[in-house]
């Protein structure tokens, strides 16, 4: 099976966000970058799919040379080769999807995995956009995946439960936490990743459909007050829930 994974390079979730000097993006000074946490589930599922059906797993990302760290992480977990679409411009999800689709369309991938969202801009639409651009079927926010012959049966998370969805290959799957337990890269994996090839090529130039006007910190919440330390305080709390919060 010809398998692709699209990964993104994001600030560590422990990052304290500071707004950058342009007022439209975050200040990267001192920020540690990691592979997008949801992409680890995508990588694991791609590797499991290869274990079952054979084939090759290609990792693709877009950005500057630093992105190679994130591609290397997926290679160390077991992916076979990498492609870096070199681009230093700021793309919206639409621009990213168009760039990815341009690369993916000629390679006849059977299945393409994404994380369900990047934990930076939280758009959660790049997988669906790319699928639609490629004319592929797509199931997003997947927590369980079965592939038999050409058929896919997946469970996707919805409010208050799961939808069991059927479709056929070729397809795009976006991975949600719970789909699997991502493997750790072994020392052997890390060593062999160094010998794997990351092909670099210029990314497609795209035009964004959206513009960020500005970025702000959310209005800070003032700390309130500690009502007390023992169970007698609940009487005052319930009174507040009634009079101030107006919830009961």
């Amino acid at each position, binding site marked *: 099976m010809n398998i692709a994974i699209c990964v993104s390079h994001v*600030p560590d*979730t*422990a*990052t*304290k*966000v500071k*707004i950058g000097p342009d007022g439209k993006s*975050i200040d990267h000074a001192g920020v540690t970058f990691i592979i997008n946490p*949801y992409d680890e589930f995508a990588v694991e599922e791609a590797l499991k799919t290869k274990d079952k059906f054979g084939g090759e797993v290609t990792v693709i990302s877009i950005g500057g040379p630093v992105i190679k760290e994130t591609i290397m992480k997926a290679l160390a977990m077991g992916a076979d080769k990498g492609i870096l679409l070199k681009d230093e411009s700021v793309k919206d*999800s639409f621009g990213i*999807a168009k760039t990815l689709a341009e690369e993916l369309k000629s390679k006849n991938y059977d299945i393409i995995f994404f994380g369900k969202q990047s*934990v930076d*801009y*939280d758009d*959660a*639409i790049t997988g*669906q*956009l790319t699928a*639609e*651009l490629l004319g592929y*079927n*797509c199931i997003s*926010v997947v*927590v369980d995946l079965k592939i038999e012959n050409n058929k896919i049966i997946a*469970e*996707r998370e*919805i409010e*208050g*439960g*799961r*939808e069991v*969805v*059927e*479709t056929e290959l070729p397809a795009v799957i976006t991975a949600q*936490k719970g789909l699997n337990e991502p493997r750790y890269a072994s020392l052997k994996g890390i060593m062999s990743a160094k010998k794997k090839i990351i092909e670099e090529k210029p990314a497609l130039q795209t035009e964004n*459909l*959206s*513009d*960020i*006007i*500005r*970025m*702000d*910190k*959310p209005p800070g*919440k003032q*700390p*309130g007050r500690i*009502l*007390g*330390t023992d169970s007698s305080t*609940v009487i005052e*709390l*319930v009174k507040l*829930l*009634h009079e*101030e*919060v107006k*919830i*009961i």
Partner: protein
Amino acid sequence: MNKIIGILEQREGKLKKVSFEVLSLVSQLASELNLESEALTIGNEILNIDEISKYGISNVTHYKNENLQLYSSSAYTEIITNHVNETNAGYLIFPNTALGKDLAPRISVRLNAGCIIDCIKVDTSTGDIKAVRPVFAGKALIEVKLKSDIKILTIRPNVFKLVISDKTTKLNITVKNILSPNLKTRTVEVKKSDEKLDVAEADIIVSGGRGLKGPENFYLIENLAEALGGAVGASRAVVDAGWRPHSDQVGQTGKTVSPSLYVACGISGAIQHLAGMSSSKYIVAINKDKDAPIFSIADYGIAGDIFEILPALTKEVLKFKT
């Protein structure tokens, strides 16, 4: 392009509350931008379709087929795309739900329309739409505008107010039967979880963290949630430990929520958790450690033992309600 359409989500034949939030916003934007307003829904029978008129919308198109009761991304995408092309609409508003987030980007490709996901504020003061949305799980907000001819927004549940229109509107429902929907990708079954309310949609959330010491003590959280009529949430630590399902997780790798009331119990308040819930209207924190970061954003705190406070609080809430 002088038309705005609200896409309404139904589950089990009932339009969801967030669909009425969509309608309230559609009405408001239609009057601010001088647009015609319309609603669109897809399903079989829609039991509460008459409620649409309460929100000042009179024209509704209902695309109907028994196989469209459950979500099918391929069929829904085709139906909405064709509808927009026929009606020449310029603006589409979706709920930012599992369905809306899956569907809006597909339609945006078909129509070459830009899309702003998870909006919490929409502004028309410049004569066009600008929207604010959280990024980095709420650690920052961005204001975004779209450059495309057709513009798509998805709105976060529980943020936009329901606005009942003061004029009475006569509802004009057009039912269009879809004879052979494109079911290439289709839902064959919905498995409901045991929990009645999902954290992503709840107006009240009671969340538990490691302070509960074990999954067997989560009944304390469930009891308080039930007394308040809210949903049960959880911190990442307890989800990773396997005490609660991932669907309960609030925070950066879980759900970002903005309920009216968030009660954090035995949660110290890691930055990833705070990002996911700090936009709640009111926050109550109950934690033994008075220096826990959660108290820095809580409106009301009790720095005490949750095993003592939670049963007392549940009892007091129930007593107050009777």
